[in-house]
């Protein structure tokens, strides 16, 4: 790894330091809110933002080129009690002990937040409002159940935004945004009832714009002071440069590549301070950054190596901050993951190839620094340069799990289906893990996870959970009374429909509350048309408002299970529904023969139409049913088969399933096969996956495959893999991502985690350090079939 010594030191620090909770953001926000009682919520949130920017004790750490943290530590997680303080109160004593994503937190900090912060938010948080309104029937299946899960939308902020550097931020700077707000405000009239909301909105954006500029100015001052005191001449000059950079951005349009990079990091920080967001995406980084890179290179003011170092420094910044989340949420989003998705390659708005020098520098940066962030995505189009595809498969061969590889045309098609203009559709980038997204958009791209396997269970168990016996689904007849496969299938779809309905309820309630309780003035200035419309992003101010995404989990488990029922019970008639039910209740114990029979029925992921057709039918139904609902802006809900780490917690609450799966074992992510059942080859798994109509699932589809490292060791292997990806995409599929690690390596990493701290693996829609995963997550990764050649 030939990085500069500075990057290597920063990298070592990132790899070796445990994230710590910093309570400063919570303290300053709370104290600010105490002073603004009675004022409109947007103003209060904006004032709190300003106060943080003005008061937080900022630091510039050793070796840093890109500066700014949202907490006192390099690797800080912050608290946002206005969203939820309860889970923190409940869980923080265990923060450093929990198996997945532990944080450092001191007793002094704990005492402080319990005595001085949480009492203020009692009864005021988004969580409490949400739970007080949510209908009981919905709460029963949607609150910490693993059946319908949207807790990241009421214990956390939404995030899921791609700041618009191209058309908003870089051209105007926050000085320009401030000016626009003041000019618009001057045109409004309190006598006009329609103007009041706008007046409040503009005032809030004036505060946040001033806040982020104040924040940068303070870094400029600090850098200048530090430069004076610094004995090392070289570092002193660096600090002076940092000071100069922070004097100009993000107030004004960047004048250099360095300034543009620092601008991006200040915007990320602004969003982090505002709401501790998930999926705050840097978007098409190679596109909006290239003009600055190119100009500096041509002017001779920056070398290619300097440019690479800046990109790598930003990668480390993306990775250092920590998205503080509950233990429940870590089950769905494991690995300190913040889902800052950065997309390179693809086509330009006019349809021509967009690949440039920075596209390659980004791929190399991920290889060199081995950070888990940004979530690096590439868009591959039919006429993409072979050199770019080679660079992509080369990175795949390194076993980092990156990049997420996407079909450019499928992404554009998904956006067209969602109602975007063609040029905008071509300009898509990824949000979070695998959601095709466009920067001028307000959308909840990961609104709810829906457990398909639970729907199947309720159809087969009279509406009850097999593990607890509790009635969770709709009424269903005793299993022995099913007379045909069609009846079983329809009963399953009926239960799915019910889960979709409750997902919609939980989303709409949360959406409404977000508009009232947690408006987003800072992010509203980063997304086009909020300023023109005088409307907050949370209230539909963006140019496009697209319906929330419901993610289906367990597609393969349900398809495999229905195939078993279809074949063994109704076609071959070698078992009865009652026998199957007994076996499931016994978790297959004493029914090994039956289990063997179930396992021998064709499984999704092997290009066998018998079961793949069932998967497609379920997916199509899911699309239709999801689209039948509308959100608070009148936008239709969207379907998705993405993955996060959600296939593990959702599996825990489901008993044995007819496919041969045992109780509580993981289910399946995205359109991926069940772990270990894609025994044919990755090619067959790709063909199965491509049978789902990817283009209609506009919330994204995900296929994860593991490849033995031997398959991509050589130039030929890499070239072949690139062409396989082209073939897969020709079928209309959207995404594929590879883990190319040997099981042997992973076992070694389990035994001596100390030696494998930087070993990245793909979890689902993202990669993270293998050693940061809980033992059961590690086992799940290993259990994925490693496709090995003979």
């Amino acid at each position: 790894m030939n990085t500069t010594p500075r990057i290597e030191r920063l990298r070592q620090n990132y790899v070796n330091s445990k994230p710590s909770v910093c309570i400063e953001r919570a303290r300053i926000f709370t104290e600010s809110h105490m002073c603004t009682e009675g004022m409109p919520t947007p103003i209060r949130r904006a004032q709190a933002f300003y106060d943080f920017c003005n008061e937080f004790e900022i630091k510039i750490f050793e070796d840093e080129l890109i500066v700014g943290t949202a907490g006192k530590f390099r690797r800080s997680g912050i608290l946002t009690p206005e969203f939820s303080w309860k889970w923190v109160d409940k869980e923080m004593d265990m923060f450093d002990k929990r198996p997945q994503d532990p944080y450092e937190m001191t007793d002094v900090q704990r005492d402080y937040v319990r005595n001085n912060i949480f009492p203020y938010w009692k009864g005021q948080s988004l969580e409490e409002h949400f739970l007080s309104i949510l209908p009981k029937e919905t709460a029963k299946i949607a609150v910490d159940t693993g059946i319908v899960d949207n807790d990241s939308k009421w214990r956390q902020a939404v995030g899921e935004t791609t700041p618009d550097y191209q058309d908003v931020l870089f051209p105007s700077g926050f000085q320009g945004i401030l000016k626009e707000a003041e000019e618009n405000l001057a045109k409004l009239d309190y006598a006009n009832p329609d103007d009041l909301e706008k007046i409040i909105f503009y005032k809030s954006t004036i505060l946040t714009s001033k806040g982020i500029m104040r924040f940068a100015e303070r870094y400029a001052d600090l850098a200048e002071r530090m430069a004076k005191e610094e004995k090392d001449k070289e570092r002193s000059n660096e600090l002076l440069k940092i000071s100069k950079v922070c004097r100009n951005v993000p107030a004004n349009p960047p004048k250099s590549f360095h300034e543009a990079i620092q601008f991006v990091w200040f915007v990320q920080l602004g969003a982090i301070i505002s709401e501790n967001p998930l999926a705050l995406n840097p978007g098409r980084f190679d596109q909006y950054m290239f003009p600055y890179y190119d100009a500096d290179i041509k002017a001779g003011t920056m070398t290619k190596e300097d440019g690479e170092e800046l990109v790598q420094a930003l990668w480390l910044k993306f990775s250092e901050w920590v998205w503080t989340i509950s233990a429940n949420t870590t089950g769905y989003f494991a690995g300190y993951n913040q889902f800052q998705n950065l997309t390179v390659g693809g086509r330009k708005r006019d349809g021509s190839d967009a690949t440039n020098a920075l596209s390659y520098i980004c791929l190399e940066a991920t290889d060199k620094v081995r950070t888990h962030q940004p979530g690096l995505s590439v868009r591959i189009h039919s006429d993409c340069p072979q050199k770019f595809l080679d660079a992509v498969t080369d990175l795949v061969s390194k076993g980092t799990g990156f990049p997420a590889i996407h079909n450019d045309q499928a992404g554009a098609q998904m956006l067209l289906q969602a109602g975007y203009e063609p040029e905008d559709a071509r300009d898509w980038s990824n949000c979070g893990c695998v959601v095709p997204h466009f920067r001028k958009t307000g959308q909840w791209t990961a609104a709810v996870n829906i457990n398909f396997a639970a729907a199947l269970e309720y159809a087969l168990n009279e509406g009850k959970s097999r593990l607890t016996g509790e009635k969770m689904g709709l009424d269903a007849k005793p299993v022995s009374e099913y007379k045909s496969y069609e009846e079983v299938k329809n009963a399953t779809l009926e239960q799915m429909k019910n889960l979709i309905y409750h997902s919609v309820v939980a989303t709409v309630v949360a959406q409404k509350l977000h508009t009232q309780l947690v408006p987003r003035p800072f992010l509203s200035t980063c997304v086009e048309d909020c300023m023109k419309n005088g409307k907050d992003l949370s209230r539909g101010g963006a140019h496009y408002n697209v319906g929330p995404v419901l993610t289906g989990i367990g597609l393969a488990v349900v398809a495999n299970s229905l195939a078993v029922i279809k074949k063994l019970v109704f076609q071959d008639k070698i078992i009865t529904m009652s026998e199957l039910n007994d076996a499931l209740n016994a978790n297959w114990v004493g029914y090994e023969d039956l289990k063997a029979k179930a396992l021998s029925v064709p499984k999704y992921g092997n290009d066998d139409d018998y079961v793949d057709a069932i998967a497609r039918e379920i997916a199509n139904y899911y699309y239709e049913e999801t689209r039948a609902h509308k959100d608070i802006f009148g936008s239709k809900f969207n379907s998705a088969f993405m993955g996060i780490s959600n296939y593990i917690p959702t599996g825990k609450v489901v008993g044995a399933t007819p496919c041969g799966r045992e109780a509580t074992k993981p289910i399946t992510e995205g359109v991926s096969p069940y772990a270990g059942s894609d025994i044919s080859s990755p090619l067959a798994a790709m063909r199965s996956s491509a049978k789902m109509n990817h283009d209609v699932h506009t919330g994204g589809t995900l296929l994860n495959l593991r490849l033995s490292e031997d398959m991509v060791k050589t130039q030929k292997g890499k070239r072949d893999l690139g062409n396989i990806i082209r073939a897969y995409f020709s079928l209309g599929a959207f995404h594929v991502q590879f883990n190319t690690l040997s099981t042997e390596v992973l076992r070694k990493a389990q035994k001596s985690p100390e030696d494998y701290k930087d070993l990245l693996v793909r979890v689902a829609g993202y990669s993270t350090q293998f050693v940061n995963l809980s033992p059961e997550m590690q086992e799940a990764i290993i259990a994925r079939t490693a496709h090995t050649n003979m």
Partner: protein
Amino acid sequence: MGECSNTGVVIQMQDYSIHDGDGVRTTIFLAGCKLRCQWCANPESWTPKRKLVYYKHKCTNCMKCSLACPMNLVPCKMERPNDVCITCGKCVDVCPQKALDIACVEKNSEDLLKKIERDALFFRFTGGGVTFSGGEPFLQHKFMRVLLDRFEELGIDSWVETCGYFDFESVKDLLPKFSHIFMDIKHMDSKKHKEFTGCGNELILENAKKIYATGVPMTIRIPTIAEVNLDDKNLEQTAQFINKNLPTADVELLPYHELGKAKYISLGIEDKFVKFTTPTVEQLNHASEIFKNHGIEIVEYR
């Protein structure tokens, strides 16, 4: 036009093969071979006879196989199952662990084509196709004849990997249908060849010349084994033979590996496994140099 058969005995169909020619290929392993190379990694391919395969590491000793066996055998406890087993497959059906299997199953061309047609998508994008291997695939020339015609119709590229020990006359009509032929030359000394493979090399060398004369591009594959054929004398003679008789052919050196051992165990013939030594990188480089000194190109399909 030679004889045709719609069925053949297939050991395995391996898709996503990247080591058996250009691009991504599906390798069709056909059963049956006249040679008995001591280092053979595919002992199930020696005869086209159905064989019981038993994977001990999967077995839980549940004994269901013995209850199912019409011959009253205990499939999971037998020394040499294939001496007595009638391969009815009843034990395979009942084994909950999939610890038993039948190798060398007869397949018909239509079923095989269905699979190939699905894989063809990947052939088109990668410049790949089908590679026949084995066993010695030409022993099933009647089956190959049917398949090759269909592949030609479908525009699917075909390669073949042969040990060279077959009757040339019965397959010569097939050769022009291949765009590339891999052929093994294991040893230039017929006595040694017989010692290690059970057969002399005369027919093989003769067939090499005849194949070369068809004009189909050839790669000579040499399984490189320290104890067998890595001495300078043999390498020099091999290079001279190629130079003289197959001047445009290139060479691929395939280092010996022990991965076949598990198969001997699963067939209950572990005693027939002979352990050789995998050549070192230095030995391989040295061998390559000898061929290069003769102006022969060394290639790697990897």
